[in-house]
């Protein structure tokens, strides 16, 4: 029994002559953590903003929580939380009062103190929102995004400026929310963040989806060749292989005891992602050339 929270088909948006979003099809399930990856200017922000109801689309259909986000009203808004990428102004009031005030916008809301606790700002609750550090401000943004008990939460690069520990804590919060049934759409530049959190990742480049899969299986990652490396005769050796276990077994026979500086490296999500982006740039150049020829 799966239930789509977001259903998109052939989504399109142009800025002048540039097709920022050039036909996207997507389905995101309830309770899923879905991550958008892509270089700056790839169209992911535009796509997400259309889904948030902040930008009009030029073509295609979009259903978010059963409604067209371009026309959805206040009842729909009360079910959606948004945490923006850009620093977003908050009233010059103590943290607690800001959260309490925003809770008042929603028909259903969490207890403000509980939300502050969950984003780890309890110690700062009585301080002015302005006095918070960058990472703390971000956590306040998240608090305001979730105070209305959203069914769907959009997070746009939420952990920019976090130290590693704060990022870990934040990931725990996001998992908790997803465990509670909140659908999460995460846009991020941190590949390890997508790997850690996302049930599925979607790579967007040049306005199109290049792949949608689990982080572990993206673009054939699960079956991709591994690199086995070791030190032999004072030189570093490397072998790319689909069967790293067999290679290591062979090496075990060649060396007495430890294999010097043995490493078995599988491609990281980042390597897979960069490979895809580079491929997409190359094919786009070829494609563009073809289009120009066709036009000429």
């Amino acid at each position: 029994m799966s239930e789509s929270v977001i259903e998109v088909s052939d989504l399109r948006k142009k800025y002048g002559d540039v097709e920022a979003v050039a036909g996207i099809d997507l389905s995101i399930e309830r309770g899923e953590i879905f991550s958008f990856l892509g270089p700056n200017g790839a169209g992911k922000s535009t796509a997400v903003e259309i889904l948030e109801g902040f930008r009009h689309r030029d073509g295609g259909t979009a259903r978010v929580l059963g409604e067209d986000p371009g026309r959805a009203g206040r009842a729909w808004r009360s079910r959606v939380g948004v945490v923006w990428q850009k620093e977003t102004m908050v009233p010059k009031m103590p943290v607690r009062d800001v959260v309490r005030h925003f809770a008042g916008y929603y028909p259903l809301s969490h207890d403000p103190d509980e939300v502050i606790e969950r984003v780890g700002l309890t110690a700062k609750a009585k301080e002015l929102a302005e006095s918070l550090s960058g990472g703390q401000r971000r956590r306040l943004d998240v608090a305001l995004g979730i105070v209305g008990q959203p069914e769907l939460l959009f997070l746009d690069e939420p952990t920019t400026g976090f130290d590693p520990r704060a990022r870990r804590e934040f990931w725990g919060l996001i998992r908790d929310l997803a465990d509670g049934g909140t659908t999460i759409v995460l846009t991020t530049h941190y590949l390890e963040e997508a790997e850690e959190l996302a049930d599925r990742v979607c790579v967007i480049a040049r306005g199109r989806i290049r792949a949608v899969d689990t982080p572990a299986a993206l673009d054939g990652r699960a079956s991709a060749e591994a690199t086995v490396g070791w030190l032999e005769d004072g030189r570093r050796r490397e072998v790319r292989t689909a069967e790293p276990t067999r290679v290591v077994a062979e090496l075990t026979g060649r060396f007495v005891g430890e294999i010097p500086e043995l490493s078995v490296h599988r491609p990281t999500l980042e390597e897979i992602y960069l490979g895809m982006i580079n491929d997409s740039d190359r094919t786009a150049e070829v494609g563009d050339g073809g289009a120009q020829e066709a036009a000429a």
Partner: protein
Amino acid sequence: MSTPSTTQKTASPKDAGPGARSGAVRTGTDASRGRPPGALRVGLSRGWVEIRTFSREWEGVLFTFMLPAVILVLFATVMGGMFDMEMSAVDYFLPGLMAMGLMSVSFQTLGVAIAAEREYGGLRRLRGTPMAPSSYFIGKTILVLFLALGQVVLLLGVARLFFDAALPTGVTAWATVAWVFVLGTVACSLLGIAISSLARTAAAASAVVTFPFLVLQFISGIFVPTVALPDWVLNAAGLFPLLWMAQGMRAGFFPEEMAQLEPSGAWDLHLVALALGTWCVVGLVLTLLTFRWKTRKDG
């Protein structure tokens, strides 16, 4: 999938319903949610937030709220001995500075503040909540009303307590002050909201708003008596609301015989009402046409 981790992820999207994940925090469903809180209730709450946040901006408090009173004190003190308008300096400048103060707390306050809210995403954030747009404007109305009444109390209090100024006498005079207060403040508020859209950045807004306001102060008979102004200057100033607000205030504060010092030799209250009423309509139309929750570059 009660304890999600990277190792447990499957290739297909989860076929989980809302209850499939177990967690401490439940998400409200649409059915249990009910309607968003009423626009008036949220608007009142916004009004309180507006007043609290305004009072924390000392620049705003100083330049838009205190300045007219400071100027009144300066004029009453400095010009006290060298004034020959058949009335004391404080009496002469009080109605004009009332008009200036009202325009300051409406036009200048809103023009600068809304441009900043727009550029720094405050408006965008609000738009991402179920808040009714009218709640935002109810909040601004409460802020301006609070500041405008405070402005009147401050100016009249300073004038009366420190300089023994003559206040309006009689119901008619106070009624004139009251309707000029309302029409002028409404017109200037709407123009302030409209002009906030003209500024491309928040930094530019204070120039875009303050420059025309400052020019109007000099050509609308606030600092310089209208009798001293050339006709063409008066005609230009007459296109904008401040001249009429000041004239209406003088009608309420000044003795009747002072009307002969007005450009036409009379208070012309019907023209004051017409000009300010027209600006209310124009301001409303401009606001409706130009108001945006996002900046231009946000698309």
